């Protein structure tokens, strides 16, 4: 399948969103709101769940499934308070020794006036730093679109998994075509050259696993996540953090 078709599939209407994954992969979800500083960002759904019996902190970038909900969720584009809410709950996960599970689906962090005023860049930067040394396992699963820094803000993890039609990129193919070539009709080429499909990213070593999209996906994810957390909860915390550091440290090292 061509890269642009994956991009279209990742953005398709009717595709399950973070809330669907939270509901179907975990049980007894209790949503928690607010960053305790400014407000509650509804582009980020977060709370506590059980995964095959084990308490986990779950955080999802939620784009909404119908027009009304999409507007309410700001189309999955989080403001700084969304990243700060996520970090608050991750710190809580660390305190109570439960793993963190993130579902990523966003075209990017919101590029608006208030987002800038309240420090979008600073909020993401803080998440990158703090997640790197969060003393509890983190797995991020890309379920749709993974747009640049806004996706990475929830993806400094021990493992990053993707669904087969999810994408992850430094820039949208539209943005790339218009900025580099001043020609928005070259989106298809850009999608291909950016190497943003799950298959490409697996090859580049940026993600660990890719899951086929079938009727068993939820069940499969549940079993694999439970097994992965079972394993990583056994690791001494120094080993866990050293592995996480090295996971990113080896990316893009010149020969």
């Amino acid at each position, binding site marked *: 399948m061509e890269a642009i078709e994956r991009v279209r599939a990742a953005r398709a209407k009717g595709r399950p969103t973070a809330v669907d994954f939270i509901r179907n992969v975990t049980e007894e979800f209790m949503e928690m709101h607010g960053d305790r500083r400014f407000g509650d960002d509804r582009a980020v759904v977060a709370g506590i769940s059980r995964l095959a019996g084990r308490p986990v902190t779950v955080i999802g970038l939620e784009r909404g499934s119908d027009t009304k909900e999409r507007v309410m969720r700001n189309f999955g584009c989080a403001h700084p308070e969304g990243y700060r809410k996520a970090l608050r709950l991750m710190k809580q996960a660390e305190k109570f020794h439960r793993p963190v599970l993130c579902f990523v689906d966003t075209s990017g962090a919101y590029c*608006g006036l208030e987002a800038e005023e309240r420090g979008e860049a600073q909020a993401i930067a803080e998440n990158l730093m703090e997640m790197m*040394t969060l003393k509890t396992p983190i797995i991020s699963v890309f379920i749709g679109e993974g747009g640049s820094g806004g996706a990475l803000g929830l993806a400094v993890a021990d493992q990053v998994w993707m669904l087969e039609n999810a994408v992850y*990129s430094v820039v949208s193919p539209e943005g790339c075509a218009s900025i580099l070539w001043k020609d928005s009709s070259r989106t298809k080429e850009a999608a291909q050259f950016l190497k*943003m499909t799950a298959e490409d990213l697996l090859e580049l070593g*940026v993600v660990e696993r890719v899951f086929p999209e079938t009727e068993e996906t939820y069940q499969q994810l549940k079993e694999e996540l439970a097994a992965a957390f079972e394993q990583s909860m056994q690791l001494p915390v120094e080993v866990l953090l050293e592995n996480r550091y090295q996971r990113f440290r080896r990316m893009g090292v010149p020969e």
Partner: protein
Amino acid sequence: MLNKSLFKRPKNTLEGYERPSKSVSPHVPDEMYLSCPGCKAMLPSDELAEKLYVCPRCGRHLRIGARQRIALLVDRDSFREMDAEMASRNIIDFPGYTKKLANTVLDSQEKEAVITGEAMLGGRPVALFVMEPNFMIGSMGTVVGEKITRLFEYATQKSLPVIGFTVSGGARMQEGILSLMQMAKTSGAVKRHSDAGNLYIVVLTDPTTGGVTASFGMEGDIQIAEPGALIGFAGPRVIEQTIRQKLPAGFQRAEFLLEKGFLDAVVPRRYHRKYLSRLLALHERGDA
């Protein structure tokens, strides 16, 4: 007189319309007069150099090359560069990138968009990185990420403070996802340096946006900026397109960030040496 270009789309420096600081580059010393991009005043170039490339009429801080900045900042002849030979390759075979790199290297006389090393400042040792506006406006690819990560790892090992000058249009698209990963990689190295009790001071200069702001550009213990510097996550044109409104004057400028609580101070270039030296002295450890 009717100005034909009156209704044209405003040119945005972040997207490469305006060749930054070409006219004030230290590599072309034969020009006698330079025009300030702020107030358009014609300034004798020797006077401008004396004023550290700050316009004496309007105070505009012109962009200066990384080597120029290092020379103006650190104790004489104290800078020792690290990883000077590290150069980018076209790692994901992005079309046109190999040629673009070759041209940029030729134009800028630099191998990459950041210079890293060790120096003395006011008699105290410091690990230093300075980003290069003349190299793809300081865009962050894998080499920039690697050099900065190595600098922080070195500084952690030697218990050295880090001072970093940022200028960047963001992550380098032509290196795809691997340039995005540099945000995480550098942030990890900054965190380890910080957790070991070391000082990191960021000086944001015009413009610092995108992936650099959203990683090591905003992770300092102390955050300062040059007057008038554009600092943000998204560039102004992207925001205007998203919200379909004109942005207010001064939006995303250093003074605005100070007011919103994201900077410790806005510090004019002529005070950098003194200001940073004092901070280094205040953080000197007894056991050093």
